[in-house]
């Protein structure tokens, strides 16, 4: 039996922001059905990688293949491809003038011709899957951070996309809510047969549910392997990130902009 084609394949990828290369020489394949953790310190380019995967950012070099096809440049084709990719944003992105149920129904109403009763039933099922059926009529402002994240997760899953991308899914959540979100991600990945890519700097919460891990630092991938191999790695870049050391090969301070003089300490 041959392996099915990877769901994501990046080859020689370079992504720029503001004329500066944020990521360079990125080669990556993500097998179907896996949970891949993309780790790295803040500002290392993790979210930029996600923007490259969703087509928000056009590669300066290299190719991006998602769902077995190169990422299209044309807006219409790109929107079509995005129906197969669920994205959970760091800020949730819930529409504030819609209830939780209306938010989840949004992609179903936009992309299907299903009758209203069926859409309501599907929304009910999606909210039930994230344990929030009782919150269907609440507005985002009435939800806690963890609940809002789960509603956003239900909405991202509304069209049953084969690929799920999570951008910092644990930011701003307490340890209990973080645990709930991570177990939901793992459970949904297994039960719905999804492929998940989790972009995060929450190492200890993410590694237990991940099959593969990669670490981004200094504009490139510095580690790819299993979570166990990551924990055992002796690479100084990886160790500095995992052990949270301020000094090491990963620069902590922001790169100074030209012309911006730093004040000398007195």
């Amino acid at each position, binding site marked *: 039996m041959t392996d099915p084609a990877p769901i994501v394949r990046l080859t020689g990828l370079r992504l720029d922001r503001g004329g500066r290369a944020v990521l360079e020489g990125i080669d990556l394949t993500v097998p179907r059905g896996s949970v891949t953790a993309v780790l790295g310190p803040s500002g290392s380019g993790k979210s930029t990688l996600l923007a490259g995967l*969703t087509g*928000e950012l056009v590669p300066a070099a290299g190719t991006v293949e998602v769902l077995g096809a190169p990422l299209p440049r044309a807006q219409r084709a790109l*929107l*079509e491809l*995005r*129906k197969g*990719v669920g*994205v959970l*944003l*760091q*800020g*949730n*992105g*819930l*529409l*504030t003038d819609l209830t939780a149920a209306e938010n989840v129904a*949004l*992609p179903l*109403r*936009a*992309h299907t011709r299903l009758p209203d009763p069926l859409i309501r039933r599907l929304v009910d099922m999606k909210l039930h899957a994230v344990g929030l059926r009782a919150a269907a009529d609440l507005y985002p402002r009435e939800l806690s951070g963890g609940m809002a994240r789960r509603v*956003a997760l239900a*909405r991202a899953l509304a069209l049953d996309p084969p690929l799920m991308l999570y951008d910092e899914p644990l930011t701003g959540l307490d340890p209990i809510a973080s645990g709930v979100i991570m177990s939901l991600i793992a459970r949904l990945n297994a039960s719905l047969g999804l492929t998940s890519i989790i972009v995060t700097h929450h190492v200890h919460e993410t590694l237990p549910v991940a099959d593969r891990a990669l670490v981004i630092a200094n504009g490139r991938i510095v580690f790819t392997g299993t979570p166990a191999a990551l924990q055992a790695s002796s690479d100084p870049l990886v160790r500095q990130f995992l052990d949270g050391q301020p000094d090491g090969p990963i620069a902590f301070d922001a790169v100074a902009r030209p012309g911006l003089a730093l004040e000398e300490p007195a």
Partner: protein
Amino acid sequence: MPFVAATRSLGRAGLFSLSVLRASRPTRDFFAELVREIYKIGARSLPIIAVGGAFVGLSVTLLGYRALETYGAANQISALVGLGLYRELAPVLTALLFIGRAGSSIAAELGLMRATDQITALGLMAIDPVAKAVAPRFWAALVSVPLLTALFCSLAISASYFEAVHVIGIEAGSFWQVLKDAVDFREDFCVAFIKAAVFGGTAALVASYVGYHAEPTIEGTSVATTRAVVNASLLVLMFNFVLSAFLFR
């Protein structure tokens, strides 16, 4: 290079306006959003337009009476009020009040949608953010501002009638007859509505453009709101001159 930047900005605004028109498709979802927006930006503007209209009617009547009385033509006051309102004051002042009340809220809402990832999320769900968030606001303004202008005129003329007849002492029959003779349905009344629709559409497009492209921060939203009010008000005043020059004989 301010000229180059201004030209580029104008070009972007033009392309944005075209994208709004292209994204306006008469779907069930669109009409539901349209009704919601007409309520939010139109119906909720009713009190401010009604109060504004009444006081403008009172002021113009007082001003006109003092001027006309000198020439013994005080009974022509309703002609002055009617022509002044339909031709210039009502469409412009309604649009300016609408910009302050609804244009600023359109810019703030879209700016906050940008700052809280709502616009990004729509794009990632393969939903065109312009179709979902901008087009209904544009059409709602296009429908609402002419109707608000009609209300403005009604309240202004009612207030003028009250002041002219019950305070100044002009005969009621003369007030209505002079108004009817002076104001032409096609050339004054209909043109006022054309102007109002143009101003409504302009206000909504300017507010949407600056809100949609706001920096995704609280400060960016605040800047966009101010810019929406200033730019839309200036454009309305400029368009008013151009339309008056071409539409009125």
